């Protein structure tokens, strides 16, 4: 049995179905990425797993405990890093950590010891007594994570923990998460930054419009696009796609082409080989090319291939 078992999870808000029949299992020690564009249903799924509100249907078990039936017992096993900076801004980092530690049942010397350890993990020992409101966005995000790991949770749920922060803090956070996972903490990491998910997670579930559209390891997901790169062309005038497809030297199928606004994406196994022929063909088809980019196979490509949309749309 996994540390988290989600079965047929559905959430309806009146007529709107935010999450539809989502099922997945996370094993102990795994790092699981939940990827999807804004509005895909990731946060709603995470909030149900956290016990913030019950699902319309379906079941959630954390460490074998039913989240709907015994939410407070199940929540004790979780550490939750919300999307917002859920901290008391007029309090210091230390005061915040002490408070959240108490909410998870820590007290006395053990609490003080854990607060000191966590301040070390998040790299904020030197400014622990300063008010959170005086911190930069990145520092606040680090305290936000610290408050969730004080009680050494079995499962750490992180909902977009790097939104709106500087590259240095982002690197620190990603390294911290990687280290926690390597020390045995199970992690669910949601983001629409595919590079972060690729860096941190062994297994990935991709969501769109409230549904799981695919899941698996990074290798498995790349295989769904045949390990093909993307050629992204931008132009001022759209080409006639039929004329590009008709070129036998390119050997491109219609389903390998995605034309959106002034951008053409072509999935191809050997982009370097066909590039010059492709440029000629597209130019001949009436387009005025402004830029060409070759992107190695990644999760963005998988999402684009499956949905026809970019993760950041």
């Amino acid at each position, binding site marked *: 049995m996994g540390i988290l078992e989600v079965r047929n999870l559905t959430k309806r808000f009146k007529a709107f179905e935010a999450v539809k029949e989502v099922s997945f299992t996370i094993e102990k020690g795994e790092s699981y990425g939940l990827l999807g564009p804004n509005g895909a249903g990731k946060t709603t799924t995470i909030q149900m797993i956290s016990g913030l509100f019950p699902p319309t249907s379906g079941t959630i078990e954390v460490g074998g405990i039913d989240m709907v039936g015994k939410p407070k017992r199940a929540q004790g096993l979780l550490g939750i890093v919300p*999307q917002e900076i*859920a901290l008391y801004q007029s309090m210091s980092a230390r005061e915040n950590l002490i408070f959240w530690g108490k*909410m998870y049942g820590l007290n006395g010397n053990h609490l003080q010891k854990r607060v000191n350890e966590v301040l070390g993990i998040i790299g904020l020992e030197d400014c622990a007594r300063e008010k959170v409101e005086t911190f930069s966005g990145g520092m606040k995000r680090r305290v936000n994570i610290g408050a969730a790991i004080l009680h050494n949770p079995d499962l750490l749920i992180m909902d977009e923990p790097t939104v709106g922060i500087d590259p240095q803090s982002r690197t620190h956070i990603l390294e911290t998460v990687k280290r926690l996972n390597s020390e045995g903490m199970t992690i669910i990491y949601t983001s629409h930054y595919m590079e972060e998910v690729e860096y941190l997670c062994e297994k990935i579930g991709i969501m769109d419009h409230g549904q799981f559209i695919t899941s698996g390891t990074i290798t498995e997901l790349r295989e769904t696009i045949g390990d093909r790169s993307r050629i992204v062309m931008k132009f001022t005038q759209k080409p006639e796609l039929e004329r590009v497809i008709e070129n036998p030297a390119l050997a491109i199928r219609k389903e390998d082409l995605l034309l959106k606004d002034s951008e053409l994406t072509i999935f191809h196994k050997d982009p370097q080989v066909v590039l010059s022929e492709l440029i000629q063909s597209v130019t001949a088809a009436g387009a005025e090319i402004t830029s060409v980019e070759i992107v190695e196979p990644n999760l963005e490509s998988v999402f684009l291939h499956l949905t026809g949309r970019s993760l950041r749309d």
Partner: protein
Amino acid sequence: MRRVFSIAFLHFKTLFKTPSAIVLMFVMPIMFSLIFGGMGIGESSGNKAVVLIVASENEVNEKVVNLLSSNTQYTWREEEESAARELVKNQEAIAAVKIDDSIEESFGKSTTPFSMIVQRKTQEYMALSNFIEGLGSTLYQAYRFSPDTQTYILLLENLGEREAIEVSQSVIQKQASKSEAVGMMAIGFTIMFMMFGISGAASAILEERVGGTWQRLLTSPATKAQVMTGYLLSYFLMGAIQLAVLMIVMKGMYGSSWGRLTYFIPFAVLVIVTIVGFSLMMATIVKTRQQSSALSALVIVSTCMLGGVYWPIEIVPEFMQQIAKAVPQSWMITGFREIVSGSLHLPSILYATIVLLIFSIVFYGIGLKKIKYQ
């Protein structure tokens, strides 16, 4: 319980880190009470209130002036009508009592022989008018039993000797003791600023919902009951400390008496519980903190006006006094006044207590039902 105390302590600490909250909860009510209390004391400190008499010279009026002057609570002085009007206008006297030229004629026409010249209906004036009404009634009874003017004059002389009016005046004056008046003023302002302060603190729930700490608390192992108890306890402590500080300051400044503490403290607890319930309700019926501030200001100021927080409820028309019964502040003031004045009229205190309990049940019922846990 650890979680409850941690939540209560955190919010309590947050309050004391907010200078504006301290100004609203402590500085403002103390300042208001000192300013208005000082004005009240200044009017009559040491000296008795001056009441003017405007009366034509005749034997009956002379006896009536004697009867008025027998009330030692006031300094009585005879003046011409124009001078009396000027003195009252300048607030050098609380009022002037004008006696009709012929009292017997007035009674014959079934009209009152007294007319009052007044600039401001203060608490002292209210006590005076009660006294004048009582005297008018006594004079009328004497008139009915007197067959002629000479007998009437004799009767009035006897009334003066028996000092029958002094007794009723002492009852009226019991409510108008200066230190009690200042104490009631301080309690009134404390109730108002407590409502503002606690409503402001309770509306923080709305901000916490936006900030995410509310959701974070709800997804921690702390139960909803623990979270709510922690919040409400912090608001209660804020109110209790606010009231205690005001009581100590007023005692130090004016020697205000708070009556028997065995009555005062339980009633004050009930008042704070009611205000916390009111604040919770206000925070849950709106969506944003801005809406909460605007609505709270409107509701608190208007109900405080209605409820006799700013001025004695007795000076407003009868129908307003009836409307006042629909706002909790009037019951808070009634209960406190009974306790502070030392009258300890138990039915009044009990009635106020029951009504406040009902208000509390309604406020908490609405607040806890409307609060969003998701």
